């Protein structure tokens, strides 16, 4: 009886945290967002209609959504690993830039057979992101620097540094534009659906989600990482090295964000250009939080937010609602979910006396 009760409670909790809370938060965000939309004189129902048909209305639209979702799955997984260890890596954007730089370098410098060149370029992306993730990890573990602030500052440095490379060493010879040469054809990720721009990065992203799941829940290292995330003192007493865990987590998190940058170049842009990332590294935080720091949730959330970005362009042309409105929705979703998780609200009693706040 009591075991059955436990299982029922577990399922109830899971249903709440994985499904009810995110869905509820999105709805609430859309309602609050509509106030803003009305305030600039646009009909919110009209705006949302274009937003959702623009995201999921037709096969072409859906493929556009999937293309947007690819980098978000990678960066969302990067954030998931870090946040699971309670390490607040807000620097996925910078790590993504470094991954893109390293992968581009590998892509324009060498001529190799595809089965060596492509994995090599992706590996370089991983290494680039890893380097940029390792620095704050080491500074935090060894010197006690605030990881949030270090990763944030390093975003700006990475973006300016990339800009320097594109106007200097990595610039396409003879070009005045801030862009690199086109990468070799042997590092281009192939298109997987004909007549669309969905590239093989999607398969890599889904595969990585499975790997991250196995790592976090089926491996000793992943267990240690989550343990440190749950309770630093207890894990230290159990003999887990906090410093090592922090550095390892940042290596992995940075590396995965780096792959996101690499895949964007190898699959989508085929050259490094300024502003190639519309802040995927920050959107990733919304993705990871909405995905409840779970790989499956991350995939769903990435497709949702990727869709919002695709739909927002349609909405912008149709009703003059700027694309940046997506940030409002993202910000609100983050706030509602993070407040809803922590507030310890008894949702079954929310509409009864006492409002449900315990």
């Amino acid at each position, binding site marked *: 009886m009591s075991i059955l009760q436990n299982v029922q409670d577990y399922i109830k909790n899971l249903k709440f945290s994985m499904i009810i809370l995110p869905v509820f938060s999105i709805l609430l965000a859309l309602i609050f967002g509509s106030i*803003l939309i009305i305030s600039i004189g646009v009909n919110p129902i009209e705006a949302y209609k274009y937003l959702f048909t623009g995201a999921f209305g037709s096969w072409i639209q859906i493929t556009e959504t999937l293309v947007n979702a690819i980098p978000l799955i990678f960066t969302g997984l990067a954030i998931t690993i870090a946040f699971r260890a309670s390490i607040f890596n807000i620097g996925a954007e910078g790590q993504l830039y470094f991954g893109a730089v390293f992968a581009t370098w590998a892509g324009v410098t060498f001529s190799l057979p595809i089965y060596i060149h492509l994995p090599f370029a992706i590996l370089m992306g991983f290494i680039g992101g890893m380097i940029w993730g390792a620095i704050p990890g080491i500074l935090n573990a060894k010197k006690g620097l605030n990881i949030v602030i270090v990763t944030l*500052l390093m975003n*700006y440095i990475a973006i300016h540094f990339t800009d320097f490379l594109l106007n200097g060493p990595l610039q396409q010879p003879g070009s005045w534009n801030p862009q690199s040469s086109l990468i070799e054809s042997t590092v281009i990720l192939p298109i997987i659906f004909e007549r669309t721009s969905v590239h093989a990065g999607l398969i890599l992203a889904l595969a990585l989600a499975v790997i991250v799941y196995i790592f976090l829940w089926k491996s000793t290292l992943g267990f240690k990482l989550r343990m440190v995330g749950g309770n630093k003192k207890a894990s230290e007493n159990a003999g887990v090295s906090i410093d090592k865990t922090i550095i390892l987590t940042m290596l992995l998190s940075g590396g995965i964000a780096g792959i996101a940058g690499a895949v964007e170049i190898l699959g989508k842009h085929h050259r490094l250009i300024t502003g190639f990332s519309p802040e995927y590294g920050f959107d990733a935080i919304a993705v990871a939080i909405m995905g409840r720091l779970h790989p499956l949730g991350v995939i769903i959330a990435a497709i949702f937010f990727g869709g919002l970005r695709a739909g927002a362009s349609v909405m912008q042309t149709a009703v003059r609602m700027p694309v940046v*409105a997506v940030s409002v929705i993202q910000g609100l*979703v983050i706030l509602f979910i993070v407040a809803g998780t922590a507030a310890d609200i008894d949702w079954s009693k929310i509409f009864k006396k006492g409002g449900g706040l315990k």
Partner: protein
Amino acid sequence: MILDILQIIFSAEFFYASIRMTTPLLLAAMGGLLAERAGVLILSLEGMMVAGAFFGFYGGYITGSVWFGVLLAMIGGALIGLVYAIATVSFNANQVVAAVGVNMLAVGVTSVIFRGAFVGGAGQATGPQFLRYRLHFLSDIPIIGDLFFNHIPLVYLAAIVFVLVYLFFKYTDWGLKVKAVGEHPLACESVGISVTKVRYLTIIVCGLIAGIAGSTLSLGYLNRFVEGMVSGRGWIAFSAIILGGWQPVGTLIASFIFGAANALQIRIQAYGLNIPFQFLLMLPYLVTLLSLFIIGKVHSPAAQGQPYSKE
């Protein structure tokens, strides 16, 4: 080249520009200090400044008055503070994640209104701008007079805010209460200080001041709003609090160092030295990072970042 840079550093213009560039950082850091000492991780400074920059411009634009702009900037900053306070104090939300959410919200809301309200010509719209105001008598002091007392009024306002925050923590009961809430929230509650009330108030006052900080950019440096114009100043102000050891004077010095780094990068660009400008743009962030590295481990308020619930 090193000689050229030294020549820039030891010029009066550089010192003057440093004071100018310190102003928004000092304001934001002073506001942040209030909330930080109450045990709140005030990573929402960036969003408050974004709101201040936009609403400062907007208020100035619709009325033509810079001071009305400042007022609206304060309201904008305080609203962002209110959202942050509701999430973190009432709902005990994780402060880092809530701050990310609040900052995204601030960027989104201001950009949507900016582009929505100025259809077609958002980039061209200009508002009023603060003029230099020479403080008589004081500005007649040789050398120092021109450096310190011939600025826009917001610079003097920042100095006043600094003095007020300093006095607040040093001499008032309320200052003591705020510090106590940041160190021992549980003990405070037992002697009848409401932790919730203190944290709400400090976050909202922080929003008011950080709003002014944001308006320095759109009403002081420029006469218009540019998306992304805050560009991490909120984070740098946050770093100034850490570097200043959560003390007003220390935070003032740290803010000045970061302000000077920004002034230096602008002066070197104007001087035309042969350094790629992207490296100069990195300078404020690098200097911030480096100074955090030098200062190393710090002692933050004991209850920092801990949600507090009566149980």
